[in-house]
């Protein structure tokens, strides 16, 4: 099977440097792309039906085609690569940036060309120090080789690229928070519409895409939309990086056809549960997705199929819950994270999440009351999308919602026994 994302990545050695990358076929896609019109690339990406790998699953081609093109577009235009990967349990972009930084840079150049961007920013999570080093080197080498700067490879296209290391907040990775953070402002979300493609960084048209999303673009350019689409098991195109963490036999990350079933990933790649542990449930796509249980093992891990389960594909990085870990404690841990990472802009998120955290903490300490469960359940509706300003809080209540659905008994036991039954 072809692995357009990870073909150059070997866990046992340093990433390819630019010469090796070129020898492995790197930067050929850029040469091909520059022979095409930007609109042609947009069209190919649209046909490939790649949905955004950052978690929201917005069709990339659709996003790019909304960017104002031609002479009338307000300039400069920007491309922002969202590399602020900070969702608990998610480590897929890290693999790409540390494992094949040149691919990320080449992808960013092609993507920028597709929307005629003048400047590209890679907005990187503060803690990804190694990725920062390797990307810095890859960008510098791309400049040396003429892949960046004025008149790239003799074409009329010019692009400047900067690595911007974030201040280290989850909200900086939210598309609009990212735009504000780039401008040196508080990373609060922005009102949409106008969308970033119209009013983005410095008020100018900006496309924001996830690292994994753009990393698919060179393959689409060099192999065509049909070939990309054929990589998957479903109508959504391409491969996907799936990760598994938790008490499984082989925690890890694999590039697999999009739409591989949950069970296949869990059993065949992660090797099932470690001896002595029973499977209880999992979060399929990072901390802001709802729990799934054994009956969902046949579900395909793509955006459309996952939505039907009541959860989401999210980032496609699975967190497994076992029978010796307290589900209340797990949800408490996640809500602590979300409450801490709320930007404080809108009331439901700023005030609601700490309240949830306090109630979960009380339940976990054995100080919970049954009314807490009602309030927790209420919040899964109150903090829905549209009720809050951005998607952080709706994401934050997804695991809670799932836990209340599948592990309610655990919550009740905590309250009834005035202690956490998982602790001795």
């Amino acid at each position, binding site marked *: 099977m072809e692995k357009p994302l990870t073909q150059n990545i070997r866990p046992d050695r340093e990433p390819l440097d630019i010469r090796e990358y070129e020898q492995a076929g790197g930067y050929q896609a850029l040469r091909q792309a520059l022979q095409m019109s930007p609109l042609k690339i947009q069209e190919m990406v649209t046909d490939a039906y790649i949905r955004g790998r950052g978690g929201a699953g917005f069709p990339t081609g659709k996003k790019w085609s909304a960017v104002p093109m031609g002479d009338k577009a307000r300039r400069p235009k920007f491309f922002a690569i969202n590399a602020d990967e900070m969702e608990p349990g998610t480590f897929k972009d890290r693999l790409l940036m540390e494992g094949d930084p040149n691919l990320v840079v080449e992808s960013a150049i092609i993507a920028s060309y597709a929307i005629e961007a003048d400047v590209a920013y890679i907005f990187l999570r503060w803690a990804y120090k190694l990725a920062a080093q390797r990307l810095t080197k890859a960008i510098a080498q791309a400049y040396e080789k003429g892949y960046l700067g004025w008149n790239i490879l003799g074409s009329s296209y010019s692009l400047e690229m900067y690595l911007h290391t974030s201040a280290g*907040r989850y909200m900086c990775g939210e598309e609009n928070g990212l*735009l504000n953070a780039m401008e040196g402002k*508080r990373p609060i979300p*922005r*009102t949409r*519409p*106008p969308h970033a493609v*119209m*009013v983005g960084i*410095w*008020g100018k048209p900006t496309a924001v895409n996830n690292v994994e999303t753009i990393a698919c673009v060179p393959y689409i350019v060099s192999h065509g939309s049909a070939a990309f689409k054929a990589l998957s098991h479903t109508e959504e195109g391409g491969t996907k990086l799936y990760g598994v963490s938790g008490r499984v036999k082989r925690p890890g990350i694999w590039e697999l056809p999009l739409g591989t079933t949950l069970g296949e990933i869990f059993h065949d790649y992660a090797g099932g549960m470690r001896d002595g542990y029973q499977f209880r449930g999992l979060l399929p796509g990072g901390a802001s997705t709802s729990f799934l249980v054994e009956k969902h093992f046949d579900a395909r891990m793509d955006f459309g199929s996952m939505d039907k389960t009541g959860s989401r594909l999210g980032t496609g990085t699975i967190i497994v819950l076992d029978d010796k870990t307290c589900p209340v404690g797990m949800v408490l841990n996640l809500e602590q994270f979300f*409450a*801490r*990472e*709320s*930007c*404080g*802009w*809108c*009331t*439901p998120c*700023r*005030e*609601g*999440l*700490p*309240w949830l955290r*306090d109630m979960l903490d*009380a339940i976990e300490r054995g100080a919970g009351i049954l*009314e807490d469960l009602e*309030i927790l359940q*209420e919040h899964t509706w*109150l903090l*829905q999308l*549209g*009720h*809050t*300003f951005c998607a952080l809080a709706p994401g934050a209540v997804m695991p809670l919602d799932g836990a209340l659905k599948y592990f309610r008994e655990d919550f009740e036991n905590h309250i009834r026994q005035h202690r956490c039954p998982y602790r001795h």
Partner: protein
Amino acid sequence: MPTIYVEGQPYEVSPGLNLLHACLSLGFNIPYFCWHPAMHSVGACRQCAVKLFKDENDTKGKIVMSCMTLARDGTRISIADPQAVWFRKVAIEWLMLNHPHDCPVCDEGGECHLQDMTEMCGHVYRRTRFKKRTYRNQYLGPFLTHEMNRCIQCYRCVRFYRGYAGGRDFHTLAWHNSVYFGRHQDGVLQSKFSGNLVEVCPTGVFDDKTLARHYVRKWDLQTAPSICVHCALGCNTIPGARYGTLRRIRNRYNGDVNSYWLCDRGRYGYEFVNSPQRIRRPLLRNGDGRPTLAAKETALTQIGGVLRESRHVIGIGSARASLESNFALRCLVGPENFYLGTCRAEVQLLSAAIDVLRNGPVPSASLHEAAWADAVFVLGEDVPNVAPVLELALRQSTLRKPSDTIQDLHIEPWNDAALREAIQTEKGPLFLATTYSTDLDASATQAYHAAPQDIARLGFAVANLLDANAPSVPGLLAPIAALARQIAGQLAEARRPLVVAGVHCGMGAVLQAAANVAYALQRKNENTRICLAAPWCNSLGLGMMGGKCVDSAIDALRARGSTTLVVLESDLYRHLDVAEANNLLNTANHVVVLDSLRHKTTDKADFVLPAGTFAESTGTFVNNEGRAQRFFAVLPPAGEVQESWRWIGELLAASGQRSSAPWQTFDEIVEDLVRAMPAFAPVARAAPSADFRMAGQRIPRQSHRYSGRTAIHAAVNVHEPQPPADPDSPLAFSMEGYLNQPPSSLIPRFWAPQWNSVQAVNKFQEEVAGVLRGGNPGKRLIEPQADGQVEYFTEIPEAFERREGYLLVVPGYHVFGSEELSILSSGVAELAPMPYIAVNPEDAGKLIVRENGLVDVALSTTSHYLPVRIAPAVPPGLAVVPMGLPGIQWNGQPVWKKLLRT
């Protein structure tokens, strides 16, 4: 007009509004926090949730924030939908999780928007049992208290302070549910608009520190509509009094004037009313020169005798006294003996300004129009310090053109954050030409600092570029010519250009240049406006009345023997040289002064009569726009204090000129004024006359919740006293009367059922943020000549040339310190700078003087020892001396002086 459906009923609304704005305008109650009628929507608080339905068949609907949703034609919503009601109730519960519930000890209690909204949502009981978050509060200066624990994080404060008012030392700090609003460290808030936080904050985080010193609940304050006396803009205010003292000033919405805002001088300058320097009883000077208190009758008899015996009586009017008091004085002394209480140069400038407004073709701009201008050119005026609320308006004007240029992005004008993100820093055009740097410089497209002559030349050059019939400027330097081209280009392109000038830089040519620019623009664009700043609250009223300048009074006094000088509400030492003032006061055989405060002039008077301040008087001021605005007594004058016009009426009787005082009531003097001077005819219509009644009742100055009516005087007499009579207005010093909405000029407070906070103003407007019901108060007295012939001013000054060894001393201004009355308030005095002289580094080098080094400069024949401030923005050859600061004796006319190092 789009039709929206609320609970299935159709309503027509104005196009382009958001649902919250539309529904509030329709009279529905939807709770809100982060939305503000002047600052619009950001969607942060999520309190204004309603149910939105796709069409008439949609029964499920979805929750949307009404402030973030356009009221499109056919929009169907429900405010009463149970889910929406529940969501709003929980939203209050969230906000209340950490709120201290300290209403009984909170200054905001009783006029708290959070209280009102909590009641409105039906939230009564918090289901949380966890610890509250607590904060450390900051010292923010003399005007504001800070109690962050009460904060509900609506972000209004920071949006006003930074986004609307351009402040830079106030921030959103911290994160998640610890978000904090304050400064990086304790210290005085630098913005002159900080006091608005008291009204912007929906709860008690920011409260009036001066009120806290003599605290009274809102419902216990006796209030009346009033006009700010601290500059010429005529901002509408609501002062509140209790136990005979003034306790605070609040904004009184007037859509044409100050809208929702006041500056801190206007809000906190009121304490002069309670000052120990107040004159409360008549004073007579004995034979040995010592002042003694006298009874009213004694004083009147004696002064009457003096006036009768004097062969010549001259009166000096006042630009800070009401139109009526000035008119009364004019009646007492006769028009030929009526002098304006300002020096020759200022009188000339003011007459020139009035001439431009009266005889020129360009209408004067209201503050509302200034805020909607899309290109502004300021000549000579330090707007932030001489007309602060105009600065706020100009700041808003810089958003107009950029908003127009991004129309293709289809961002609704109320979508504030989105609009600002799209505009970013591309603001303006706003061009400033001033003698030194001002607070607006950072927001200006270009800020040009030059001598007054050069400012005038730039203006003339711009006018010439706009209309070749306007005179050209010979010998203009290339960079100035380029700047003129840039300014002319932007003004010509604008849809609503505005020219701002005034009398403060002390040079008539600047005013004429500004007039030329406005005239030239008017020929191309009839939406052109001109705004001329003036120094005093009634400068225009006095100027329109007309009279000679005070300088010439001295000649008149000398010419004849046995003279009496009657000075109305002014300290001559602020307008004249010390020597001139001494001369004037010594030459007159008798000096009678009517004023509310002791000052140098009252100290030299033979007779002093206690005049009421604005707070104890009814009268009319004419603001810089030419708008006559009525103010009403907030508290009855105590003891022998009364309005100057009443005193003068009684003097007319006492001196035998009339058989009895000619004016028993305010309406009588207004009637006389209008008869004598028809230009003031609209003054009579500025507010209803005293016999006006609503449903047969007066408008009460006290709220229906006013407490202690029977107890306040119990220490004196247990019988409830008769409320003081008010023959001058339809208002009553009582809690009894008409409780519904009075005409806009008589609104004593904003209150509506369920709306106890200042947000109740929504209920008084025809459409929220629009005009008050029945029209905004005030009547314009000056309209331009409809078909007036445009005559350009042609006297172009020579370019400024430096003189070896001399500096041209020009006036500077400070919002805190330059104004006579407000500096008697402790907070204003605290923020007033020490006197100084500002010079360019180059000139400082020539003088061999360092920062704070002392120099001696003779101004108005008085030696001034002033520390030097080295200011690169002061053009070489100029020196700036701040006006009005204690210790500075100067009338502000530019003058060449030698600075001596001491």
